[in-house]
């Protein structure tokens, strides 16, 4: 028997997991770098980094991506040595490791785009290999302190010197504690497992080690997990975290070591960057966005169905049937649908902090290339954003932060001369307001935008206010000039920022700047957006979009097969698989056609279903299919039956998104059209 398994099928899942591992690796490496700069060790992060690369290597081998296997192998090798050296990594090793991560990342992107991963960049392996050879193996400096572990269990030999040190040298009021957790089937069913207990205890202090001990345990178990941690939490809190009875909490006594005496040399300062949040909580679930979109689509179908029901009830009421109860249910049903839509949209929310986790890395790179001292402050709290919005916003924010460091911030000397602290500051703030919008600010304390200089460069009069200045900065042509030394500085790619924020997402962009003091960009974007797979077509010289899901079929309209019954005003019939379908000239319907366009037979038809009946809309040309961001027309007075909203196809021009089902209905006498939408 041969297994009909192709591991290449796992490529999408592989890409998703490696992406997560890379994020974690970046965070750990930056923590390691921060420690290395102080000459300190960071054993935890080195270990995590090692493990991330080890996993990447193994997975890449399984799906046969040899370049990533090689890169991660050599990175792993040098990290193994650092791990054996007590988590000490020379600062000079950080850059080649960063380079390695970037190389892996680049190949991931190639794979995601359906290409082959390119070979390992020349020289990289040699540089990584050299790290392993040259990094001096510094012996661990941790001295075993006298920790009197419970004599009943021979745990002490199972602790490394570093672990003993971690247990006994807790800062502040921390004390070494032993928590016994006894797993059980009934407890597991309630979600109290070693994984959840470990996670809860890790949040209460420093969890140093977990040792499984077999043998009769209180409560009839046969296994005890002994968790050793350094904590300031009370016994009651610890016991609760371990799931209550029959868990036990015991203090571990420590005694000063006779060798060390009281003159213990000062400890290294507490490590400040413990990327604890990097651990993914087991309470989260990865879901493909397309599945959530599918749920939304299903919901949209429900909403359409509800309008049919509503109409039926109206008809019933009209003939005098008792429908009061029915109407009450219908109203409740409408509320439930809205709640459900809100619940599904909440599933698509991602933490802004997670989305921006790569920005510190970007700033780090800029610090290196520009030689400027920069501090990036992220004040995003727990703000959340629709994943679709976040994905689109990220490039805009990257642009703004890059601009701020590249152009707005002065060199340390310039800043000192201007009486500013030498280290520049870029602050990114974010908070959601209650009305469905998110406010984001990107502020720097740099030189500000000199309106006069910008005007000179653009060859126009000096703009009067910040809005005019922003307008100027966002001119597409303006962005192409790249003068790093210019005093106006800003403007690189501002047109792209505005395209994303204003045109794509329908948000707002404002500028506030003071020469010599700094610049703040205020962005306001919607909390959620509606994505739509759309067919783009041309009709009477204009482009339109229509949801793919609403179109039953695309047909060729042959003039010879079009029948125009005499007297039927503007209505023609076209044959489709032996069936007559009403052919409507979309150009005429939209009132945008010249006389000759109406007379000519449109070459293509979009077939849609209206109240069970097929209708073909004649259009001039099909331009393709793409995912669009649907921006509903917000003003209720402008709500036109048949128009779902507008979108930007990437050229900055608004394009109408048609709802052909309703467009046909509105045309008919006596029909109200479908105005109810899932909003």
């Amino acid at each position, binding site marked *: 028997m041969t297994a009909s*398994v192709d591991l290449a099928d796992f490529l999408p899942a592989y890409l998703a997991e490696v992406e997560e591992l890379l994020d974690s690796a970046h965070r750990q490496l930056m923590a390691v770098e921060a420690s290395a700069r102080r000459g300190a060790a960071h054993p935890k992060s080195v270990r995590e980094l090692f493990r991330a690369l080890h996993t990447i290597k193994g997975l890449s081998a399984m799906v046969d991506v040899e370049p990533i296997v090689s890169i991660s*192998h050599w990175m792993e090798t040098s990290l193994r040595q650092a791990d054996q050296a007590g988590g000490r990594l020379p600062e000079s090793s950080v850059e080649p490791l960063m380079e390695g991560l970037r190389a892996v990342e680049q190949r991931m992107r190639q794979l995601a785009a359906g290409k082959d991963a390119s070979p390992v960049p020349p020289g990289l392996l040699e540089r990584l290999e050299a790290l392993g050879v040259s990094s001096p193996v510094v012996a661990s400096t941790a001295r075993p302190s006298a920790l009197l572990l419970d004599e009943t269990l021979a745990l002490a030999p199972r602790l490394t010197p570093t672990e003993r040190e971690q247990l006994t040298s807790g800062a502040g009021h921390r004390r070494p504690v032993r928590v016994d957790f006894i797993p059980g089937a009934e407890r*597991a069913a309630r979600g109290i497992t070693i*994984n959840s207990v470990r996670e809860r205890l890790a949040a209460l202090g420093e969890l140093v080690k977990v040792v499984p001990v077999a043998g009769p345990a209180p409560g009839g178990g046969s296994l005890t997990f002994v968790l050793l941690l350094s904590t300031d939490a009370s016994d009651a809190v610890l016991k609760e975290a371990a799931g209550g009875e029959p868990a036990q909490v015991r203090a571990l006594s420590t005694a000063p070591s006779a060798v060390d005496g009281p003159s213990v040399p000062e400890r290294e300062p507490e490590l400040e960057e413990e990327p604890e949040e990097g651990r993914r909580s087991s309470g989260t679930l990865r879901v493909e966005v397309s599945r959530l979109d599918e749920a939304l689509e299903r919901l949209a179908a429900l909403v359409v169905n509800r309008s049919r029901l509503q109409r039926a009830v109206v008809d019933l009421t009209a003939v005098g049937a008792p429908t009061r109860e029915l109407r009450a249910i219908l109203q409740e049903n409408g509320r439930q649908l809205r709640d459900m839509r809100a619940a599904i949209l909440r599933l698509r929310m991602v933490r802004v902090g997670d989305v921006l986790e790569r920005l510190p890395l970007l700033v780090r790179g800029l610090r290196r290339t520009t030689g400027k001292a920069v501090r990036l402050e992220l004040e995003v709290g727990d703000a959340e954003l629709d994943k679709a919005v976040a994905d689109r916003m990220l490039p805009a924010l990257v642009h703004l932060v890059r601009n701020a460091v590249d152009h707005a911030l002065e060199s340390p000397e310039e800043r000192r001369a201007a009486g500013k602290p030498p280290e520049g500051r870029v602050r990114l703030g974010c908070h959601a307001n209650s009305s469905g919008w998110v406010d984001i600010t990107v502020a720097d304390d740099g030189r500000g935008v000199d309106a006069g200089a910008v005007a000179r460069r653009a060859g126009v009069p000096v703009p009067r206010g910040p809005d005019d200045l922003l307008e100027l900065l966002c001119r597409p042509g303006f962005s192409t000039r790249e003068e790093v030394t210019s005093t106006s500085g800003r403007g690189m790619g501002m047109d792209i920022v505005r395209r994303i924020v204003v045109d794509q997402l329908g948000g707002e962009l404002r500028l506030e700047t003071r020469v010599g003091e700094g610049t703040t960009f205020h962005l306001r974007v919607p909390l959620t957006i509606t994505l739509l797979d759309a067919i783009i077509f041309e009709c009477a010289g204009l482009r339109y979009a229509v949801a793919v899901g609403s179109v039953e079929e695309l047909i060729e309209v042959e003039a010879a097969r079009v029948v125009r019954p005499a007297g039927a005003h503007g209505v023609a019939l076209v044959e489709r698989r032996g069936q007559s379908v009403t052919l409507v000239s979309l150009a005429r319907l939209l009132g945008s056609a010249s006389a000759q366009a109406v007379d000519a037979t449109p070459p293509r038809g979009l077939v849609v279903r209206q109240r069970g009946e097929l209708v073909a809309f004649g259009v001039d040309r099909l331009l393709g299919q793409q995912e669009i961001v649907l921006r509903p027309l917000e003003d209720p007075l402008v709500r036109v039956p048949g128009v779902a909203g507008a979108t930007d196809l990437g050229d900055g021009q608004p394009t109408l998104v048609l709802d052909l089902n309703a467009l046909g209905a509105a045309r008919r006498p006596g029909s109200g059209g479908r105005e109810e939408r899932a909003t």
Partner: protein
Amino acid sequence: MSEVLVVDDSKVMRDMVVACLRPYPGLNFTHASSGLEAIERLSLSPYDLLVLDLNMPDIGGIEVVEFVRGQDRLRTLPIIIVTTRGDEASRARALSAGANRFMTKPFTPDAILAEARGLLEEKPA
């Protein structure tokens, strides 16, 4: 029905192992994402095969093997260790601790399937 416990902190890797073994009829799979979870599950219900990663965040695969072999009830549980190039030094340790087979990534679906079949069918009653 034979119960298989697949232990790896990488979900993709667990899914791959399951996909590789799926063609063998009558297997039921349970996942564990850490060595400690594996020990917990082994103590709570019986299994017929353990597929174990070596490199995990809390306690490594070798410690799991040592733990398993230290228990009367689990002394004959077949264990396949799955690991990555560079872990060769661990191979001897894992085998001497009592692991039955050792697979190094990359391996083919057929290779691990053949090992699993061998272990499940030769398993002493």
